[in-house]
């Protein structure tokens, strides 16, 4: 039996409203089937299943808002033992529980009565002295037991004055509210929460490299001459492909930081899409490294309008392993990103513009792009980041190999 849980669709998601069950009890499920629609700050998301089996029981009613990790349904996979839904488990960031956030939103999500909480005597003492509710803590000690460090972290989190103001408006806002202003507000709060978390917890380091884009732009221009207007490429498709290749060479940046560096097997690049009404959505281009430049362009053509219409699938929101933000034409020269937790890096492309560029003792005017990397210093050091930018540059100088 598999417990199918409310997936975590990003660092900024804490709860979702189950809007509609798309499968009924007794129905046969296949990997990739849409099982339900869930409303989040990012709109109505189609939730996919990642296992095969029969839908045994629905545990959450339509219209109910539940926290991430809540068991939504039981899927009978023919095995007697109960296991948790596998896939997002590997890809989805482990849920970090911040006592304050939880107290506000999910008072009922405490550990069930009778379940023994593993906690060291010292941790229990500190918790009692500081009135910390240990049932809300996630243990990092042996067998998930709560240790002194977990309690101390909870206390210091609780003291942070920034947390409440950032969270509160979000919590009081009904996410299922339809008006555009409410959606935009929820979106703003979601971005605020994720970026506050990033800035608070991740020690960023920044690197920058100016890259000659003449060969890449010539390649795109030539490629577009042969393509009908609907299939034409934007330079960003080539940039995304080059980033995927460079990540393949420097896998420490295609990872998450969760009790240490966890490299990811797939390269799923999240691409920042800005919304006209304000806010951003970061859908993933799944398996970017195995896609051609044309396939990446097709994926963008499909993803951007759906992201703007708030119509993404759960895998597209939960499985990115690295992020790209690109300013595009007519914008700023450089962009320094904030990492999307628990990822460990984000690349920023400024506007591609003509600049004086010196090479081999000659000065010329060339299209160049200023590329920045923000990376998590807990996970990697500048040498790794620098190696990544060098690899990226090398690929952009040889676009025909991409």
């Amino acid at each position, binding site marked *: 039996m598999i417990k199918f849980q409310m997936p975590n669709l990003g660092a900024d998601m804490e709860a979702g409203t189950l809007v509609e069950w798309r499968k009924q009890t007794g129905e046969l499920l296949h990997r990739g089937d849409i099982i339900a629609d869930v409303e989040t700050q990012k709109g109505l998301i189609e939730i996919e299943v990642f296992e095969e089996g029969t839908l045994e029981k629905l545990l959450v009613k339509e219209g109910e808002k539940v926290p991430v990790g809540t068991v939504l349904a039981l899927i009978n996979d023919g095995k007697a033992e109960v296991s948790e839904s596998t896939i997002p488990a590997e890809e989805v960031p482990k849920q970090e529980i911040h006592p304050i956030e939880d107290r506000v939103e999910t008072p009922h999500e405490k550990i069930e009565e009778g379940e023994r909480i593993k906690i060291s005597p010292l941790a229990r003492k500190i918790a009692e002295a500081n009135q910390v509710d240990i049932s809300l803590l996630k243990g990092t000690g042996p067998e998930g037991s709560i240790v002194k460090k977990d309690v101390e972290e909870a206390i210091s989190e609780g003291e942070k004055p920034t947390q409440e103001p950032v969270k509160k408006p979000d919590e009081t806002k009904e996410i299922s509210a339809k008006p555009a202003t409410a959606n935009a507000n929820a979106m703003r709060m979601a971005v605020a929460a994720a970026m506050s978390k990033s800035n608070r917890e991740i020690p960023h380091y920044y690197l920058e490299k100016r890259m000659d884009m003449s060969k890449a732009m010539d390649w795109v*221009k030539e490629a*577009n*001459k042969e393509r009908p*207007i*609907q299939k*034409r490429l*934007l330079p*960003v498709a080539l940039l995304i492909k080059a980033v995927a290749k460079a990540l393949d060479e420097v896998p420490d940046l295609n990872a998450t930081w969760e009790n240490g560096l966890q490299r990811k097997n797939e390269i799923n690049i999240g691409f920042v899409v*800005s919304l*006209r009404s304000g806010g951003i959505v970061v859908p993933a281009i799944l398996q970017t490294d195995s896609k051609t430049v044309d396939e990446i362009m097709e994926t*963008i053509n499909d993803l*951007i309008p759906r992201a703007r219409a708030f119509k993404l699938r759960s895998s597209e929101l939960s499985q990115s392993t690295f992020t790209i933000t690109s300013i*595009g*034409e*007519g914008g700023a020269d450089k962009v320094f990103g904030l990492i999307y937790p628990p990822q460990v890096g984000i690349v920023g492309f400024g506007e591609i513009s003509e600049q004086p560029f010196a090479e081999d003792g000659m000065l010329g005017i060339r299209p160049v792009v200023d590329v920045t990397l923000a990376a998590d210093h807990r996970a990697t050091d500048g040498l790794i980041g620098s190696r990544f930018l060098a690899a990226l540059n090398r690929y952009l100088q040889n676009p025909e190999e991409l």
Partner: protein
Amino acid sequence: MTEEEIKKTVFQLLQRIAPETDPSRLMPEENIREALNIDSFDALQFIVSISEKLNVDIPEEDYGKTSNLKSLLAYLEKKVKK
């Protein structure tokens, strides 16, 4: 297709991309993308949709002629008449 009809189609398509704006208030030589806050992706979508709607081919090297209303309308008129 008359000049007026082309203009109307252009405004319609621009408004579909930037719904909260009023493209008919664009000045003839104002940069369309800047004025309506249209990004690279939407700019390409606009060119695709206008080429489909008016049944004209717009090669990439002509994208520069689509930057403001005056040059865009002149360009499209010439293309449509061909």
